């Protein structure tokens, strides 16, 4: 009996290990400094994680579908620059700038999706190429200049990044709503099921009459949509942007998704777990700051946590701690 109990505890730990780790982390930090779970502090953390988090939601779809998206960082720069530029363009204004930016960003996602879904090219290299190409596109578009909104007091554009609704910061609201929506899409709709099937075993999915190419294509559109949303918040928050605002974020986003427990082989992961992954990164950073450490200590902590998390996951699956490689 006790054996049975240990076993099931073990399997819960294996499946929900990251959640358990998160709770332990939160509790111990709160005991040490009660300010940690102060509501303002919590909102502050979620708010600063919102942009990364929203991007991670889209990348979760791509990764569960069995692919990678390394282009989200430069796509973020692109969308922020474009929306700011169009905002300043009298022919557009904020009301038209936003849908136009979304359309353009979705086009980039469609290119990714076409090349990877329909042409079956390797997603790592395609999105690496797109990382570079979109960066070039952004620089060409902006002429290498940073973008700023000239009359910051005369626009409602700052609402996405700086506004509050129902006492909740708008970026947090968008992040949570989008997470809920995409979480339901992934967990409850036929499309979500197909994403898991395609990532879990693409051949078996094809043999089951699932349009693999279209499903992969859609995951990249979702990823691009999330990036566009994140770009809007980024631009709105700072009311200006550098060409390189998203540089390097692709790998941080991926780290959050992996930390949440999605396998790079595809077919596993959930939106909820990704949100946990994002929050862990956010709260670690916050906790370390409250402890008086510099923000960059979090990088080192993240490194150790990612490797431990994936290692334990693999080790429980193979039943051995160390790899059998000779």
């Amino acid at each position, binding site marked *: 009996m006790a054996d049975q109990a240990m076993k099931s505890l073990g399997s819960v730990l294996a499946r929900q290990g990251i959640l358990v780790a998160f709770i332990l982390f939160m509790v111990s930090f709160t005991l040490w400094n009660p300010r940690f779970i102060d509501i303002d502090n919590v909102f502050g953390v979620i708010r600063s994680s919102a942009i990364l988090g929203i991007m991670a939601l889209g990348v979760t779809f791509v990764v569960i579908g069995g692919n990678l998206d390394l282009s989200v960082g430069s796509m973020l720069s692109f969308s922020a620059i474009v929306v700011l530029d169009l905002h300043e363009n009298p022919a557009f204004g904020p009301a038209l700038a936003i849908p136009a930016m979304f359309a353009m960003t979705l086009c980039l996602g469609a290119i990714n999706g076409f090349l990877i879904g329909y042409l079956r090219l390797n997603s790592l290299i*395609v999105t690496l190429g797109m990382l*570079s190409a979109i960066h070039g596109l952004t620089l060409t578009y902006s002429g290498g200049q940073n973008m700023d909104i000239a009359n910051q007091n005369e626009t409602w554009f700052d609402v996405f990044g700086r506004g509050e609704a129902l006492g909740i910061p708008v970026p947090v609201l968008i992040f949570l709503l989008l997470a809920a929506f995409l979480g339901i899409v992934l967990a409850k709709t036929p499309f979500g099921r197909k994403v898991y099937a395609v990532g879990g075993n693409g051949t078996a999915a094809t043999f089951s009459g699932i349009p693999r190419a279209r499903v992969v294509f859609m995951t990249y559109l979702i990823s691009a949509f999330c990036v566009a949303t994140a770009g809007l918040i980024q631009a709105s928050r700072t009311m200006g942007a550098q060409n390189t605002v998203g540089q390097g974020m692709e790998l941080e986003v991926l*780290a959050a998704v992996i930390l949440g427990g999605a396998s*790079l082989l595809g077919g596993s992961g959930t939106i909820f777990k990704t949100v946990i992954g994002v929050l862990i990164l956010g709260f670690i950073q916050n906790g370390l700051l409250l402890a008086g450490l510099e923000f960059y200590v979090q990088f080192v902590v*993240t490194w150790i946590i990612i490797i431990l998390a994936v290692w334990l996951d693999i080790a429980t699956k193979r039943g051995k701690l160390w790899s059998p490689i000779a």
Partner: protein
Amino acid sequence: MQNETLKRLIKNGAIWAFIVIQLVFFEVAGRWWSLSDSAFMDLDNMLLLLKQSAPIGIIAIGMTVVMINGNIDLSVGATYALAGIVMLDSMNWPFMEAMGDAAIPLAWLFALFTGAILGLINGVIVWKTGVDAFIVTLGAMLGYRGLVFMYNGENPTYHLNWTMVDFAEADILGLQTPALVFIAVVLIVWLMMTRTVHGRNAYAIGDNREAAVNAGIRVGPHIVVNFVLIGFLAALSAVAFYSGSGSVNPNDGMLFELWAITAVVLGGTKLAGGRGSIIGTLGGVIAIQLLRKGLGHIGADTETVNLVIGTILIAVLFLDRQLNRKGAEELKV
């Protein structure tokens, strides 16, 4: 059989053909359309090109080895920065300052040692935990960058030593030190991959890991050696570059891993491992640098270089797949 050999020739020659086309194009475009008043295929220009491609080039050579072996290393940019910081900062240590110029080689050693250790850490983790190298080095990319910041906060680290600068700018036959280091690395690693047992085993492991294991090749130690090598080369790249510049920013080296991978893939190395060549990567590195310079030469916006390289990378992938298609009998999955 003939057909296969021909395909191989086309694949291996493609990057050099591309370089020649670039040379001709930029020369012709510059001269005949009067977009530039100077010649493009100018000796000084080409020598400079080699020097400019050295920092990423040296790293790309290491990346080739790791990728042939069937792994990848995303942490090289951070390793590069950390090695640079160690080198410059160590020159400020009291006992090193007391040594005067004699401290220079010691500083280099410290840097190279740092790089090798960082590579060793990655390699051992990949070997012993069995976690995919992509994830291990993705984590290390963040972790090593964290170490970079912890070293000196967000401030640049500098130390200007004129002897070191002179050394970095010394030249033989017009080739400055970074270019010479790059060429030496290409030669040595090329010899390693084509002539030594370790190099050949690295190919075998990347090509067919099961066959290698069955043949009694110890996969783990080979993986570790290659990670140590790429860490060492990232540090060597830092030594070659920062000896001259004398100042490291904590953000230096970001995206180097992606540029290096781009050069390696352009040079024909297979992502899954087992195929690739050092000379091909040299071609990939030169092609990228040539594009960068060439677009500047004809007065095009240098910013478009990213756009062009990204497009070419995807096009290469597409063509490669078309070459490998099996035709009508293929299963549609």
